[in-house]
């Protein structure tokens, strides 16, 4: 049906109001504030240009945080996609108890990032952990929790995020995989394609749009990593698992450097928008 101007206004107004007041408005006001010396409890507000951003970008702590989240994104997102795809691939054909499988795939995602942090804090520990229980059977020495290890903390965070997110990715990819027409599989099989041939010549092109959409969401999720780390390591040991989101939160709410916190948060936002622009570009082709 044709929507009149008035219809469109009526339909869009509720969303626009909500998003303007609780999302876009604060975001843009925050952007403006970071160009000044504004902070909630000061009266002296001057224009400072990009000084807040320069200070954040020069801070070695922020550089470490950016490096950490870069590594985290670089490893977590491809692992989540591949593991998710592999699980969806295994569940593609008829299987007994498929309904139960679907519920199971959703379970780790239902554990909130914060609860996941609490859970893995104990599961990785020596006294109540999983690894030590089985290592004990082998008579091996007790390993200390990787979350407290300078070199293992970040990989541990990656592993925990993959555990939580990959099954959900499988859940999202499964309908896409199932919607690929049967003939295309048959053609590939007749042409003698191997498993990898079928994956890369039939499955991936057939669900390209869906894969891009899921990738966008996963990259945003990884770049904003906060909850799990807050509980599991608090950014430590040292700054081994510090992320820009954690840096931003600490600056704004713990160390009372509001401008630095707001500016660092906008650096994260800018990174997501850059990825978003790439996503729109790639999805168009």
């Amino acid at each position, binding site marked *: *049906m044709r*929507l009149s101007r008035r*219809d469109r206004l*009526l*339909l869009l107004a*509720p*969303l*626009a109001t*909500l998003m303007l007041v*609780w*999302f876009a*408005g*604060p*975001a843009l006001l925050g952007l403006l504030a970071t160009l000044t010396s504004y902070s*909630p409890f000061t009266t002296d507000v001057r224009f400072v240009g990009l000084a807040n951003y320069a200070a954040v970008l020069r801070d070695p702590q922020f550089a470490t945080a950016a490096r950490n989240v870069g590594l985290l994104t670089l490893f977590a997102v491809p692992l989540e996609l591949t593991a998710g795809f592999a699980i969806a691939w295994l569940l593609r054909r008829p299987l007994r108890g498929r*309904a139960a499988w*679907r*519920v*199971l795939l*959703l379970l*780790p995602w*239902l554990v*909130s*990032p*914060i*609860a996941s942090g*609490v*859970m893995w*804090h*104990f*599961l990785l520990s*020596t006294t*109540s*952990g*999983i690894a*030590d229980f089985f290592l*004990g*059977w082998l*008579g091996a020495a007790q390993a200390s929790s990787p979350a407290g290890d300078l070199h293992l903390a970040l990989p541990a965070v990656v592993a925990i995020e993959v*555990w939580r997110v990959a099954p959900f990715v499988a859940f999202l990819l499964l309908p896409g995989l199932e919607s690929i027409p049967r003939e295309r599989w048959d053609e590939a099989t007749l042409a003698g394609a191997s*498993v990898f041939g079928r994956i890369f010549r039939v499955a991936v092109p057939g669900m390209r*749009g*869906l894969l891009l*959409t899921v990738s966008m969401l996963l990259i*945003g*999720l990884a*770049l904003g990593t906060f909850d799990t780390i807050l*509980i599991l390591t*608090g950014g430590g040991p040292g700054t081994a698992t510090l992320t820009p*989101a954690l840096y*931003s939160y600490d600056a704004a*709410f713990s160390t009372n450097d*509001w401008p630095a*916190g*707001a500016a660092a*948060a906008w650096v994260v*936002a800018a990174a*997501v928008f850059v990825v978003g622009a790439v*996503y729109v570009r790639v*999805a168009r082709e």
Partner: protein
Amino acid sequence: MSRRSRFAALAVVLVVLALPLVWTLVASFGVTPDNNARPPSWIGPPTLEHFAYVGVAEPTFWQELATSTALALTATLLTVAVSLPAAYCLARSRLPRDRLVAQSFLVLASLPVMAYVIPLSDLMRRVHLLDTLWGVMLAQAAVTSPLAVFVLHGAVRQLSPEWEEAAVIDGAGLLGILGRVVLPLLAPTVAATAIVVFVLDWNMLLVPLVLTGGEVKTVPVAMSDFFTFERELDWPTAAAALVVSLAPVALLVAAFHRLLEQFRLTDGTGINIG
């Protein structure tokens, strides 16, 4: 892939996914491993006392559970109520760059909350909505709306406009079309989207953490409090709290898993995939 190797691979997936959860479930009943014994063994007869002890360690836990439920329910309803009309409008407006609009909502859905929550808390303080249910509820609804718009937009695009055209001929107005034609046709997708949004709301930490300060407290905030203030919580009690906080969403998903298959992501056009 042969039947047997597929079965073996699925068994590995099952163990990796479920073992951490089973370990936690068992611990919540007071059965924990004794890793110091050689060989390691299990301690303790099963007991329910750790569930009762959650309320002792965190006296307001049951109150927080009620707050979380009320917040997640209302925020979900609001998200769906504002997203469905907007998604319908965007899908039926024949915009020249329709796909770009949909993709923009996906990018907004990917934006970490941290990006704008700092100025948001300042703004909420100024309008006296800090530490109120309203403030948190509206902010949470704003966080989840872009994803809901993206998914519902895809669903409307897959819907043939014939039904709406027929309703127009019968004299239906805008509300009649939305409520009596579009909503019933999209009911499964709307319900699936609502469930996903409910889970996101239920698990949300940063928004309530930053927008509240003691009056309003949700379960995730309580959990973070416990650990940030270094109060030592023993594992069975923490496990019991985890199980209690996971149970509502787990039951929800188990009951409606068939419906959840209608939660489909698209590439922004709503056609050709999933």
